[in-house]
C-alpha cells in the first residue's frame, strides 16, 4: 500500500520512481521532503550544440536603410533573423538584419536545418534531465510552466533563454516568474510586444497575460486590456537578448487598470494583477488539473489558493501543500491522469533505468504522439487529458515498448505541416524508424519483480501500473512470460507486456 502511494508521489511530482526509490520505501511525507531538497539547486541547461551560429550571418547580413515597418517584416515571410550575438557598432540603431529572402535555396535549407538541429538538441537535453536528474520536482514544474507560458519561436537561443528562466523560477514565487517571462525576447516577440508602441498599441501580450497566464476570462474588461497594453508599450529587447525599456515608445499618460489609476507601467500592471483574488484560484486550478486530477475540485482548490496568496505566491510552498494533502493520495486521484507523451517517454526511461544509444529518434515518436517541446500547439499550450488519445496515437503508445525493446517493425510518417522550421521535407525524412538502441537493464530490474518467478508478473504490475491490472490481462502477460526460455527473457516479456497495456498510459 505504501509503495503505491509512494509511486503516486514520484509519478506526479516527477517522472516516476526509479527501482531504487521503490526499494528505499520511504514514507511519502519523507520522500516529498527529499524531492523538495533535491529540487532546490538550479543549473541552466546549456551546450554548444544549442547555439545556432548562422554560418552565413556575417556574409549575408544587410543593413536596413530605414526602420523596417511591421508589414514589410511580414513580407519577408517569417520573423527577421538578426544575428543578435554580434555586438552593435556604436551609433547603429539596429543590428544588421539577415533577411531570409536574401538567402539562396541551399543557404535557406542549411539555416533551417541548423535551427531544427539546435531545437532537437535542446529537447533531447531537457528530456535527459527529466529522465535522470535528481531535481525531479523542478523539471516537472518547469514542464508545467513550459505549457503554461506556451511560446513558439524560430530562434533556439530565445527559446533556450525562456526555458532556463522558467526552470530557474519554477519553484520560486509566481510574480518573479511572471515578470521574468514577460521580459524575455521570446515572449515579447511571440506576443507581438515589439510592435506595441505608443502610437499603435498592440494588445496581444496584455490580453494573453490576463487570459492565459494569470486571471482567466471574465476577470477583466476589454478596457483593462487596452489600458494594460498602453502600460506595456516600450517593453522591448536589444540585439543581445536583453530586455530594454524604450521610453520614447512608452505611453506615459494616465491609465486606469482594474480600478487603479496612474501613470502605470508594465510592472505596475503585473503587480495589480497579482492583487486579484482570481489569480490564485486560476493558477491553482490549472496546477491541480496538471498535478492531481483533470476534474477540478473546488473544495481542495480554494484552501490551497488562499494559502498560495498568503505565501505571496510561493510555488515550492504550494507544491508541498498539494503533495502532502490527504486528498492527493485518495484513490480517486491515483492512476487517473493520461500521461503526456513527454511524461510517457521520460517516465519509461526513468522508471526502468533504460539506457539509450541515440535519444534523437525518440523525439520523432514524441512528435507522432503529439508533443514536441518548444512547439506547443498555440499560446494556450497543450490541452492534455483525453486530447492525447486517438486511434493512431493509442496504437503507437501501446506498441512503443515492443518497438524500443523488441525492435518491432513500425514506421510512422509524420506530417509536414507541424512546424514552421523545416517546411519542405521529403516523405523519407519524415518517416520515423527505430534507431534508438534502447536497453532494458534486466539484471538490475530482477529484484523489482520479487524473488519468486511465479509472482513476478503480479508484483511488477503493481510496481509499473498505477491502476489495478485487469485479471484477463494479467493472465495474458503470464502466458507470454511462460513461453520465454530463460528467466531473463521471462522478465523481458513480462515488462514489455505490462508496458504495452492501456493501464500503463495512466499515472
Amino acid at each position: 500500500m505504501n509503495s503505491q502511494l509512494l509511486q503516486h508521489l514520484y509519478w506526479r511530482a516527477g517522472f516516476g520512481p526509479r527501482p531504487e526509490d521503490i526499494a528505499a520505501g520511504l514514507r511519502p511525507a519523507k520522500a516529498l521532503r527529499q524531492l523538495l531538497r533535491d529540487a532546490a539547486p538550479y543549473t541552466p541547461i546549456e551546450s554548444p550544440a544549442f547555439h545556432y551560429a548562422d554560418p552565413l550571418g556575417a556574409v549575408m547580413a544587410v543593413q536596413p536603410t530605414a526602420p523596417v515597418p511591421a508589414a514589410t517584416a511580414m513580407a519577408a515571410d517569417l520573423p527577421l533573423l538578426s544575428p543578435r550575438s554580434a555586438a552593435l557598432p556604436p551609433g547603429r540603431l539596429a543590428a544588421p538584419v539577415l533577411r531570409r529572402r536574401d538567402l539562396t535555396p541551399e543557404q535557406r535549407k542549411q539555416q533551417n536545418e541548423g535551427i531544427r538541429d539546435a531545437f532537437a538538441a535542446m529537447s533531447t537535453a531537457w528530456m535527459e534531465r527529466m529522465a535522470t536528474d535528481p531535481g525531479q520536482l523542478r523539471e516537472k514544474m518547469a514542464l508545467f510552466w513550459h505549457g503554461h507560458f506556451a511560446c513558439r519561436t524560430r530562434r533556439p537561443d530565445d527559446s533556450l533563454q525562456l526555458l532556463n528562466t522558467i526552470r530557474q523560477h519554477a519553484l520560486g514565487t509566481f510574480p518573479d516568474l511572471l515578470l521574468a517571462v514577460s521580459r524575455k525576447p521570446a515572449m515579447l516577440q511571440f506576443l507581438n510586444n515589439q510592435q506595441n508602441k505608443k502610437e499603435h498599441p498592440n494588445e496581444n501580450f496584455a490580453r494573453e497575460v490576463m487570459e492565459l497566464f494569470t486571471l482567466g476570462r471574465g476577470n477583466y474588461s476589454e478596457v483593462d486590456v487596452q489600458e494594460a497594453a498602453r502600460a506595456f508599450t516600450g517593453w522591448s529587447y536589444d540585439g543581445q537578448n536583453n530586455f530594454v525599456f524604450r521610453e520614447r515608445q512608452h505611453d506615459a499618460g494616465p491609465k486606469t487598470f482594474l480600478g487603479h489609476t496612474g501613470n502605470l507601467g508594465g510592472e505596475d500592471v503585473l503587480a495589480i494583477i497579482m492583487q486579484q483574488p482570481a489569480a490564485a484560484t486560476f493558477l491553482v486550478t490549472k496546477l491541480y488539473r496538471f498535478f492531481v486530477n483533470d476534474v477540478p475540485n473546488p473544495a481542495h482548490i480554494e484552501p490551497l489558493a488562499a494559502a498560495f496568496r498568503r505565501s505571496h505566491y510561493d510555488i515550492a510552498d504550494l507544491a508541498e501543500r498539494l503533495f502532502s494533502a490527504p486528498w492527493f493520495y485518495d484513490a480517486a486521484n491515483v492512476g487517473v491522469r493520461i500521461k503526456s507523451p513527454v511524461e510517457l517517454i521520460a517516465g519509461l526511461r526513468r522508471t526502468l533505468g533504460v539506457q539509450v544509444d541515440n535519444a534523437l529518434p525518440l523525439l520523432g515518436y514524441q512528435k507522432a504522439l503529439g508533443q514536441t517541446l518548444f512547439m506547443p500547439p498555440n499560446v494556450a499550450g497543450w490541452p492534455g487529458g483525453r486530447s492525447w488519445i486517438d486511434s493512431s496515437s493509442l496504437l503507437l503508445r501501446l506498441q512503443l515498448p515492443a518497438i524500443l525493446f523488441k525492435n518491432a517493425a513500425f514506421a510512422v510518417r509524420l506530417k509536414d505541416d507541424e512546424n514552421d522550421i523545416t517546411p519542405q521535407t521529403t516523405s523519407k525524412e519524415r518517416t520515423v524508424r527505430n534507431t534508438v538502441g534502447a536497453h532494458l537493464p534486466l539484471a538490475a530490474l530482477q529484484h523489482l519483480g520479487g524473488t519468486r518467478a511465479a509472482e513476478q508478473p503480479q508484483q511488477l504490475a503493481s510496481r509499473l501500473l498505477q491502476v489495478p491490472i485487469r485479471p484477463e490481462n494479467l493472465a495474458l502477460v503470464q502466458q507470454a512470460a511462460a513461453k520465454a526460455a530463460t528467466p531473463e527473457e521471462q522478465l523481458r516479456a513480462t515488462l514489455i507486456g505490462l508496458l504495452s497495456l492501456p493501464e500503463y498510459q495512466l499515472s
Partner: protein
Amino acid sequence: MQRRRFLQSSALASTLLLVPKFLHALDRPEARLATLLRDAPAEKARRLIVVQLSGGNDGLNTIIPYRNDLYYKARPTLALKEAAGILPLSDDLGLHPKMTGLKALYDQGQLAVLNAVGYPNPDRSHFRSMDIWQTGSGSDQLLTTGWLGRYLDSSCAGCDLPYQALEVDDTLSLALKGQLRKGLAVKTPGKFHQLTQSRYLSQLSQETAPAAAISELDYLYKTLAETAASADYLYQKSKVHTSAATYPNTDLGRNLKTTGELITSGVESRVYYLALTGFDTHVRQHEQQGRLLGELSDGLAALAADLQKSGEWANTLVMVFSEFGRRVTQNASNGTDHGTANNVFLLSGALRKPGLLNAPASLADLDQGDLRYQVDFRSLYASILSDWLGADDKLVLGPGIERLAGLV
C-alpha cells in the same frame, strides 16, 4: 447502441478469447449496420472529401488572372503567360497549364471555384494559419478541437460510428479531433488492420464501460476497442472492391485510390481527409508548384472518373484548400512568400453552382501587398456542414457565421 452492435458484429470481437460480458448480454443484431445505412435515404449518404494543400499554395498561379497587367507587373519572371498553355475558365481567369484534369471537370460543370477565401487579421505562420483553418477559429481565438471533430461531437446522423471520419495518413490531424469523438487515421485499410493485429494487442481485454461517465481507463479501452473493430471492419469491407481505375502513382494518387475504394466498397464514412504537401514555394516555384498541381489535378480527375463509374460521384463533395495564398509580388528567388486570401475548389457530380462563383480578389486594392479576402472560410464550412452533411453548423462553428446560400 449502434456502436455496440457494430463492435459485436466485427470479426475481431467475435474471435476474442475474452469476449466482454456486456456484449454477451446483447442480442445478436439481425442486420449489420451497413444494411441500415445503405437503406437510409439518399441524402444521408452524402460524403465530404477534404484535400489540404500544405505549405500555402500560390493561388494566383493556380487560378491565373491572365489578362491583368498588374499580375504581370508584380511577377516579372513568375507570371504564367497565356502562351504557356493557361487553360481558360473565363475571359479573365485560367487554370494552371498542368491542371487539364480539373479543366475537363470544369467543362462538365463538376468544378466550382470560390475566390478570395480567407479570414480577418490573417496570420502568416504556416502553423498558426493551418491551426485556424483546421479548428475553424478566428485569428484571435484559440480552439483545441477541429471543425470536423466538432461535427462528430454534434450528434450528427451516423456520428457514433467510430469510422465516420477517416484521415488517409499515419497520424490524425487536429481537424478531425473533437472533444468526445475523433476520426481515425487510416493510411490504408491493410496497414491499419496490421497495426491492430499484433497478437498481444488483439488479445487485450476489449471490455468497455457504458458511455456515461467513463473513467480515463475506460476511455482508453473504448478507443482501443473501436480502433480494432474499425480496422477489422474496414479491412474486410475494403476487400469487396478493388479499384480498376487508374490513379497517378503518387502519394496523393494512392491516397485518393484508397478513398475511392473505401467509398465504392460501401464503407459508410462521411468524411475523408487527405493532404498534399510541399507548397511552400519560396524558391524556384515554377517547377515545384507545377508538379504538385499536376498531381492534384490528375488525382482528382481519376477519383471523379472512378466514383462516376460506381455511381458515387453525385454523393461526393471534394473541397480543396490551403492555409494561405502567397504574396502578390514575387520574391528575388523566383518564388513567393506567405500571403493571405486564396481560392478554394469544390468538386462534385452534383454541384448546385458550378463554375467561377465570385470575382477574384482585386490586384489594385491590396492590404499591405496582400489580397483582401471576400469570403470567410467559416461560411464555406457552415454551408458544407448544414447543406451538404445535414449537420448543425451553429453547434459546430458557433453563432454568427453566415452560410453561403445555395452553394452546395
